[in-house]
């Protein structure tokens, strides 16, 4: 029986792998890829919560209307949509900065990059 815990543990593992990569790699593009892995771990957790968790206010509540239930159940997915959109904006800007640094410095290693100007 695959339940909430399975997905949460998977998301924790994915987040940890991404965190390790973001902290240890020296190539900016690899760091950006690791940050994408972290975003995906968080997204899996958010969607899993929206699939399995019910808020305590709905417990044995006979007067709950369908719109309330929907608001509670779909919030995780709505947040995942926003996370994906913010990740897209982050990657567009991040890779723009990578290109600017490469043009100025001829390198994409963070150990050789301590200023954004030439």
């Amino acid at each position: 029986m695959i339940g909430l815990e399975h997905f949460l543990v998977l998301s924790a593992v994915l987040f940890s792998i991404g965190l390790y990569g973001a902290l240890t790699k020296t190539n900016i593009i690899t760091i950006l890829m690791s940050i994408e892995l972290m975003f995906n771990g968080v997204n899996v957790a958010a969607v899993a919560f929206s699939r399995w968790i019910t808020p305590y206010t709905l417990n044995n509540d006979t007067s709950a209307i369908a719109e309330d239930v929907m608001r509670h159940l779909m919030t995780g997915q709505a947040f995942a949509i926003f996370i994906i959109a913010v990740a897209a904006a982050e990657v567009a800007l991040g890779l723009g900065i990578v290109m600017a640094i490469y043009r100025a410095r001829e390198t994409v290693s963070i150990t050789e990059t301590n200023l954004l100007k030439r």
Partner: protein
Amino acid sequence: MPLVTQPLFVQIVFWALSAVVVISALLVISLQDIFKAALALVLSLLSVAGLFILLNAEFLAAAQVLIYVGAIAILIIFAVMLTQNVAQGSLSNNFRIPVALGVSLLCVFIIIAITGMDWNLITEANLSSATQEAVNTIFADGTASLASILLNNYVLPFEAVSLLLLAAVIGAIVLVRER
């Protein structure tokens, strides 16, 4: 017991997908060749889209494939090809062992917290029959419910995101433009 029944193949698909996700994520941070790491990232993102389908989030799975695999991964591969330093590859800094220790400790703590927590799950026991019916209707048509909540409860963040994307596009053009 969740309200939606779970056939056996769901378990097989879950374990297969999570194995692919974890192995390709490990490849992303361990491969020396950045181009191959980007391809492993594509595999990982595709498997996460499969996990979204398992979680009754079909629209998110489609958005994941379109935005992550279709746009973000292509952008990363372009950046790799434009800046690749073949001799150097993807190196690590000197903090590999302390960071690995700290991150695995963090992961263990999170897993302990997850397994020890008493989650208030969606079950027949704690929901009234009207609520159960509403839950079943919502999961039967998840995309329509998601659209409804995005354009009713979260309409202001929804519009703010479009502004954010516009700002990001203009910023990226300014950064990449030849002077």
